[in-house]
C-alpha cells in the first residue's frame, strides 16, 4: 500500500493518530463479531447456568428449521422486489431527466429528497396510507373492488413494506443512473441519431449497454439495503406479521435474541448474515476494480 513520497518521521505520533479509530473498531466491531462466532458454536441451557460446545449444531438446526428457511426466502423475495422495482422506476425517471436540459436540476431536487427519509418513517407513512379503516389508498383500492388488509393478508403486508422500502431507494438509484447517463459521450448518441436511430433504439443499443456497470453496482447496493437497512420498516409497521409473512432475516435475529432469548441460534444467524455481507462486499469490490479499467 502506498504512502506519500515525502513523509513525516515520528516515533509515537502515528499510533496516537490511528488509536481512536482502532480502539473503537476493536471494541465495538471486531470483539462483538468474534463473540458471535464463538457463541454460535455453543448452547446455553434455559437458565444460562451451563454452556456446552455443540459444534455446528446451531447451524444444522437453523437449516432444518422451516421458520428460518421461510424467513430466508421472504428476505430474498423482498430484496428482489425492492431492488427490481426501485431500479426500474429510477431508470425510467433518469432517462427522462437526462433528455431535459434546462430544468434538470429542478427535477433532481424534486426526486432525490426521499433518500433523506428514514426507512422507519417511510414505513409509518405508507402504513398510514394503506390503513384498512382510514387509509386513503385502502379506500381507493376498495372502490376498485380490492379488499386491502395488511393485518390479515401476507401479500398485502409484503406489498406495503416493498413500496415503503422502494419509495425512498428510488431517489438513490435515480442519482446514480442520471450520473451514469450524463457520463455517456454525447457524440455517440448524436452519431446514432444521424444514422437514423430513434430514441428507443438509441436507448437499447447505446445507453443501456454503457450503463451496465451502474446497473450491476446498484443491484449489489440495493440488495444490501433491502437485507440490512430495512429493519426499521418491518419493526415499526408489520412487526413481522401477519403470522411470519414479513419476518426478514435481520428482524428474526433481533427477535430471537431479545424476545426469544435464544443466544446460540441468534449468534449462528448473525454469523450467516456476516457471511452474506462479506460476499456482497467482495462482489462490489471486484466490480470496482473492473470499473477502474473500464
Amino acid at each position, binding site marked *: 500500500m502506498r504512502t506519500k513520497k515525502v513523509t513525516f518521521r515520528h516515533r509515537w505520533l502515528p499510533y496516537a493518530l490511528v488509536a481512536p479509530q482502532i480502539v473503537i*473498531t476493536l471494541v465495538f466491531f471486531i470483539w462483538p463479531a468474534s463473540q458471535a462466532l464463538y457463541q454460535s458454536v455453543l448452547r446455553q441451557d434455559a437458565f444460562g447456568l451451563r454452556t456446552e460446545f455443540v459444534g455446528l449444531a446451531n447451524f444444522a438446526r437453523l437449516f432444518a428449521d422451516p421458520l428460518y428457511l421461510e424467513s430466508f426466502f421472504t428476505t430474498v423475495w423482498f430484496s428482489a422486489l425492492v431492488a427490481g422495482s426501485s431500479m426500474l422506476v429510477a431508470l425510467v425517471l433518469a432517462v427522462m431527466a437526462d433528455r431535459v436540459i434546462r430544468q434538470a436540476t429542478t427535477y433532481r431536487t424534486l426526486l432525490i429528497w426521499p433518500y433523506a427519509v428514514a426507512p422507519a418513517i417511510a414505513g409509518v407513512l405508507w402504513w398510514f396510507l394503506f390503513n384498512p379503516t382510514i387509509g386513503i389508498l385502502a379506500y381507493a383500492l376498495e372502490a376498485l373492488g380490492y379488499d386491502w388488509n395488511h393485518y390479515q393478508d401476507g401479500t398485502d403486508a409484503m406489498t406495503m413494506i416493498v413500496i415503503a422500502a422502494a419509495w425512498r431507494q428510488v431517489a438513490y438509484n435515480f442519482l446514480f443512473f442520471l450520473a451514469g447517463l450524463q457520463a455517456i459521450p454525447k457524440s455517440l*448518441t448524436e452519431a446514432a441519431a444521424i444514422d437514423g436511430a430513434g430514441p428507443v433504439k438509441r436507448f437499447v443499443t447505446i445507453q443501456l449497454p454503457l450503463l451496465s456497470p451502474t446497473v450491476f453496482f446498484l443491484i449489489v447496493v440495493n440488495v444490501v439495503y433491502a437485507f440490512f437497512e430495512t429493519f426499521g420498516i418491518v419493526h415499526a409497521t408489520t412487526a413481522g406479521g401477519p403470522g411470519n409473512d414479513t419476518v426478514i432475516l435481520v428482524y428474526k*435475529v433481533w427477535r430471537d435474541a*431479545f424476545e426469544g432469548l435464544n443466544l446460540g441460534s441468534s449468534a449462528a444467524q448473525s454469523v450467516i448474515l456476516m457471511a452474506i455481507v462479506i460476499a456482497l462486499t467482495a462482489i462490489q469490490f471486484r466490480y470496482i476494480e473492473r470499473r477502474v479499467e473500464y
Partner: protein
Amino acid sequence: MVERRPLLTFTQHAVLIVGAAIFVFPIYLAFVASTHTGTEVNRGLPLLPGDQMQENYAIVLGEGLSTAGAPPIGLMLMNSTIMALAITLGKLAISLLSSFAIVYFKFPFRVLAFWTIFITLMLPVEVRILPTYEVVAQLGMLNSYAGLSIPLIASATATFLFRQFFMTVPDELTEAARIDGAGPMKFFRDILVPLSRTNIAALFVILFIYGWNQYLWPLLVTTDESYYTVVMGIQRLANSGDQLPQWNLIMATAILALLPPVIVIIVMQRLFVRGLVEVEK
C-alpha cells in the same frame, strides 16, 4: 437533446412531474393528517389541510402522547440532533486523523491498521446485534449519549475517502511546510484540513443523514424514554396497544422527524450528490 421531438419532450416532462408528484404524495397526506383533529382523520382522511396545525404540533412538541408512554417529541428531536451531530463529528474527526497517519507516516503495523478499519465495512450493526449490545451494557453505556453515538463512529468509508484525497495533495506542499519548520500536526491543522474543506462538507451531509436515521441501534441501547430518538420513538406511538392510534399526532411526529434531514439534503444538494458519488467510488 439530439433532435427536436415535441411529443417526446412533452411525455418526458409529464412523466417527471407525475413521478415527482407520486413521491410527494405520502408526505402531503401526512401533512394534511397532521392539521386535523383525531376524529376528523379517523372519519376518513380529508384531502385539504385543516386548521388544527398549531394545536397538534404544540401537543406533540410539548407534551407528547402521554397515553403511549412516550416523552415529548421536542426532547426526542433534541436527542436525535445530539446523536446525529456526535456521530457525524466523531466519524469525521477520527477518520481525518487515521487517514493522515496512514498516508503521511511509515510505521510498523500501518497496513494492519488499514485493514482493521476496512473490516468495519463488512460488519454493520445489523449482523452483530446481541454481542455489541452486551459490550455496551458491560461498559455501562446503555441509556447515554455516549452509548448512542460512540459505537457507531468508526468509519471505513470516510477513512478511504480522506486517504484518496490526501494522496492527491501535492508533495511540494509537504516539503515546503517541512522546510519552513512545520511539524506534522501543524501541517495537518494549517494545510491538510483546510484543503479538505469540500470533502468534509460533503461527508458531513451524508453522515448527518446516516446518524439521524439510525433506528436499530437506539432501539437496542435505550430503555429510558428520556434518551429516545425521534426516528426510533415513532414506533412507540404507532403501536400504542389497544387504543386507536392518534394518527393526526403520529403524522405530525413523522413530519418533524423527516424534516431536518430533508432540509439538509435540499439545501446542500450539490455537496450531497458529490459526497454520495465519491463515497461509493
